[in-house]
């Protein structure tokens, strides 16, 4: 009877094709602090922002937005456990944890995750792209079913 819980849906579990091949090509990520830039395209509008990013392994991620407004988006609490599970699984290369709900492919250093129809995320998330560097993530693109596209660059 309780109504949906969309936030966790955006980061529900995931699945993979050729898991072992892909795992070999993607580095393992450790805790990191860096700058980020974000561009969000929604309802025909573009919102740009930037700030500091913190990833603490096994805890979660925090975005300290400093421009154009000051705000903190922390995904470390129990409410964001699903998001953290996905982040930690990718960072720790535990792709098997994600294979139930996502299909994914890896090409040209870009890891693409697409929710399967059985996934809670299927009706909301269309595509998650992760562009990897040598030992870190360079860029993430989140494409939602309603057309919202969020691109985040890490520097």
């Amino acid at each position, binding site marked *: 009877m309780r109504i949906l819980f969309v936030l966790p849906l955006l980061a529900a579990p995931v699945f993979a094709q050729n898991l072992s091949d892909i795992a070999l090509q993607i580095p393992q990520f450790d805790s990191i602090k860096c700058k980020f830039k974000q561009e969000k395209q929604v309802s025909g509008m573009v919102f740009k922002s930037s700030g500091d990013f913190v990833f603490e392994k096994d805890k979660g991620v925090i975005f300290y937005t400093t421009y154009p407004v000051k705000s903190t988006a922390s995904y470390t609490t129990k409410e964001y*456990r699903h998001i953290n599970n996905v982040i930690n699984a990718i960072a720790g290369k535990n792709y098997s944890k994600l294979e139930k709900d996502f299909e994914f492919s890896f090409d040209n250093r870009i890891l693409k995750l697409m929710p399967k129809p059985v996934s809670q995320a299927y009706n909301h998330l269309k595509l998650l792209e992760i562009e990897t560097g040598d030992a870190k993530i360079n860029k993430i693109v989140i494409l939602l079913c309603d057309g919202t596209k969020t691109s985040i660059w890490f520097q």
Partner: protein
Amino acid sequence: MIKRILFLIFSIIFFIFAFLYAKPPEADLMKAFINPHSQMEKNIVKLAGISSTTVNVFGTDEIPNNNQDFSEILDVYREYPASFLSAHKRELLKNRQYRELENEALEGIYSPLGFYAAPIDKDPYLLATDFLISKNKNEAAEFEGKTYQLSRLKIQNTKELESLIEDVKGKDIYLTGTPVHSYFASKKSSKEINIICLISILGLIVLSKIFFHSVKVLIPIVLSIIFGFLFGFSACTFVFGKLHVLTFVFSTSLIGISLDYVLHYFYGSCSRGFKTGLTSSMLTTVTAFLTLLFSNIEVLRQIAIFTSFGLLGVYLFVIFILPCFKIPDTYNLNWRLRFPKKLFYTIILAVIAIGAFNIKFEDNLKNLYVPPKHLFEAEALYQKVFNPQAGEFLLIEGANLEEILEKEESIDGFGLSNFVSSTKRQNENLALVKELYNADLALLENKLGVKFNPSLKLYDSEKFPLNKEFMLDNTTSFVIVPKKTAGSFNIADEISKILKRLRYTSLKLLPVVFGMLFILLSCIYGVKKALKISFSPLLGVVFTVGVLSLSRLSLNLFHILGLFLILGFSLDYSIFRLNGDEKSNNAVFISFVSTALSFLLLSFTSFKLISSLGLTIFIGVTVSYISSLFMLKSEHEKI
């Protein structure tokens, strides 16, 4: 011969029509006992039905997906973002804290992983998103250093539940809620019933070997049982349409009585008084069961028709069809009960007397069911981790949905108004949001460098997809309130009250049934013989109450229902013992042993309702049978 053929043709047509007319059996336990006397009882049945489909899934591991489709509801919030406000946003709007609202909107818009319940250009202050998130509280909780997630799933059928149980196997995930208890209880019960059936069949085979030197005798016995069952089922289907599964369970007594009739045929069909004995036995037992029609308890009314017509069917089968079968060789067990009569009755009377001072009744629904250990522990953990509301329900009545929603909005509770607002509340919300837009929207647009086109539409709450989940009828909804309040009630307590009323009704009906049977027996055998016949069944009933009370067992509705069946079984023993010869006594003995064994086994089942019934009948028929050995000497025994 023609009579037999006609009888069979008529019966087959009767069965075919019944099967065509039959509906799938009703499995809802509440519907077995409650033929709602009032609107309140109807509502309780509906509320119990609602809770009986929800499973709480919680644990520290990833909980299974909630496959429910909420898109229709999401569409409403997407299209009408300003009509629905969370308490927090409403407060800010009322206090004209527009800066705060703007900051919250900006945080949401720039949030990297944020989502939007409605398009930003239609809902720039993310009111719909905030409303939606406000409904997602308490779905996670910390307990002893662990984080537990909770999901409430609607389960439509057993297959879905089995799949869920399979999904969570081996994970730190727990299931609670009525469907889970029903599933495990019925699974365990069916396993136990299978074992009991197996032991009963083995017992029957052993008895057949001892008394008939052959198991071939089981063929007419089984045929008569099937015929009686079909006859009862067909009549009951025509009267009630949909039968309850418990009717089938209780109607197992038909098996015992069918066995009686066939055994008596084998042992006494040649004797003079056989037909009279069989007819009066059938009439008295049918009368006993038909009296249950006045009970106003749905399952008892069904049992009354099922068993009465079942017995009539067996009776007709014995009269018309059994003569086609060869009467098997019978073995006569020559034995006399050596137990001192006076000592027997002294013990019986002592138990009755002491038991009378210890009678206690139990109507509390919770005490009628003892969950398996793993479910008990899961329920305890669920209570500790999530501390759910006590389950106090409040019924809200109104001339229409608008009135109901307005009333709900003035109450602190969980109901339909948590998801859809009344027109009055929506108009208030729209006015507040309009003020915000007039005062602040241009500023927000300037900050973001965009132009918004916000939506300010009123939603027709009559169309809300969740209405049917909370409305009991067109003028009544329910709300779950956090604590006891004027007019609120607890479903389990209300059901217990209903069980108490039913127990009273059944208890009052028992002497009426007995009185009617006595009058009938007096008409057939005269008052003196009727007294003799009735004494042992009455003793069986009273002693059972005494011994249960003495054992500090509180009597529940099912013990009382068992007392009716004691009358039905043991009257037969008395009638046949009085009218039959030595052979007939053997038939009574076999019949008693098989019945007592079946119900003794039933008393060991884990399902308390069924074990109560089994224990009651076992004690009752045993004492009644032994008493009949002392009280009733058939003509040959007097010689």
